[in-house]
């Protein structure tokens, strides 16, 4: 059966403002579909309706109009969350629990027990790289570690859909890279990922499709490569090219109808530079 992972149809959410006549429309007539196995990014500035949309999909708040479904089941039904894992924005969890206890608690909520729960907890602690910190209370975890234990709890019930609200917000570049690697790993394992973010460059590498929300309205949607491609521009990246060769290529371009817009030395990203520098230091 190949049900659409997430279906949102005509979704509108209006929040009344107490003691005022006007109300706030957080999401307006939103339609979107997330196909099984893809990584879908819901992008937009703060207050654009991303988190509200995710909360409605998860049944945490009810829509004013429209409907949402997860694998063909209405989001308002508890059983629709059977195959879902969710990581909210900046989660705190229970500070008094250790990493392992946290995963055991969430596993029990999904009615896992005994040897199966134990092996699942160990497997996930290893996956998110927190095996050594498993007996530490979450109160002592860094933000990146909290995000990783959050991702682990979202995966405890072996979900088919993982919903991540701003998964890399407030996490340092190394932590953010770890989370993105984990998302890529989920996709490789066939798990559908729906994430929201306003950190565009970070999601650019991992999303198959994106939808851009502005003031509760979906203003753009499509495959990432198609959306960001500049139709009549091409890039050629060369290694060890001599000055003569480059001049030859420029001459060829000038003789054709093409126009050379820019010639520059390739640069690394600031993030890669940061990661290389900090990783080298920690390895010494």
């Amino acid at each position: 059966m190949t049900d659409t992972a997430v279906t949102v149809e005509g979704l509108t959410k209006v929040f009344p403002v107490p003691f005022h006549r006007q109300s706030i429309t957080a999401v307006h007539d939103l339609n979107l579909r997330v196909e099984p196995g893809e990584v879908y990014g819901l992008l937009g500035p703060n207050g654009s309706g991303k988190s509200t949309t995710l909360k409605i999909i998860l049944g945490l708040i009810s829509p004013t109009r429209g409907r949402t479904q997860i694998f063909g089941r209405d989001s308002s039904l508890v059983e629709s969350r059977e195959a879902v894992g969710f990581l909210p924005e900046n989660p705190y969890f229970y500070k008094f629990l250790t990493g392992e206890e946290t995963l055991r608690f969430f596993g029990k909520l999904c009615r896992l027990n005994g040897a199966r729960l134990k092996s699942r907890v160990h497997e996930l602690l290893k996956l998110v790289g927190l095996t050594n910190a498993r007996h530490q209370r979450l109160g002592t975890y860094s933000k990146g570690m909290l995000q990783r234990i959050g991702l682990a709890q979202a995966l405890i019930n072996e979900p088919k859909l993982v919903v991540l609200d701003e998964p890399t917000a407030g996490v340092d570049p190394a932590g953010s890279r770890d989370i993105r690697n984990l998302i890529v790993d989920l996709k490789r394992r066939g798990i559908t990922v729906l994430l929201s973010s306003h950190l565009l460059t970070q999601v650019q590498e991992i999303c198959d499709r994106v939808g851009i929300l502005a003031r509760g309205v979906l203003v753009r949607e499509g495959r990432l490569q198609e959306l960001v491609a500049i139709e009549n521009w091409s890039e050629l990246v060369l290694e060890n090219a001599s000055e003569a060769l480059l001049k030859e290529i420029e001459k060829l371009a000038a003789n054709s109808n093409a126009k050379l817009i820019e010639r520059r030395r390739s640069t690394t990203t600031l993030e890669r530079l940061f990661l290389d520098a900090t990783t080298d230091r920690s390895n010494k």
Partner: protein
Amino acid sequence: MSDAAASAVRHRAFSPARIFAITTNTLTELTRQKVFNVILIFGLLLIGSSLFMARFSFQQEFQILKDVSLGVMSILSSLLAIVATARLIPQDIEDRTIYTILAKPVPRFEYLLGKLFGVLLLLAISIALMSALFVAVLYLREQAVLNETLRQVSRPPGEQLDAALNAVRVAGLKIDILAGIAVIFFKACLLAALTLFVSTFATTNIFAIIVMVSVYFIGHLQATAREYWLEQQSAGWIAHVFLAIVALIFPDLQAFNLVDEVVAGVAIPLALFAKTALLGLFYIAIYTLAATFVFYGKEL
């Protein structure tokens, strides 16, 4: 179908295992926040009052010991029920922990029941520990007084000695004390259920605590006020309806005050005990239902 989906546990509309997971987690949360320290306060008060009472006769001593212990136990367990419950839901919302829990296949009523049972378990353990401490102190004092009586009346006529020993036993440890303690537990459970209801619409735990402290005082005073009002000739059906509503919103906490009978050594009739227990259960059920109703409509 993927392996993951194939191995997923099938959903159940009602799962005691899920409720138990939330119950034990709530108990762990409260325990690790050192709420059991109230028992330390109880112990210190008990020891302090025992030292103070050494100068009284044994009848006065036992009476004061019972009065102070049961009174303090009642106040501490009520306070514990309100303070421990008031923070549970607002804190989970503030920390967003509630999102991760309810984004799992957990029905909202199971979440509420798990939280409530966690507090009730905490109250049961706390009251059991306080009772054990109180009963142990009372028993030891009773034995000490019995030995003292035997020593003082060195060559007694048999009847006189029996009467003296009996007087000590009557004033000392009696089974009715347990009934009195059980009623203190019912009252604390009722307050926990009502606090849970208030916390489903309260935005902060301070608000819930303030509301509940008001309810606590009104609940203790309303029976007296009602009796006074109904004695007035002008009390018509409107007054009766109004008083019934007040009695539902503000539980009649005076009905759960059987400490005076216990202290006075008066036996608590079984019928009165059963009636009080049923009243407690009725209130708990009503407040839990109301909490569930409000919580289902809550936008998280």
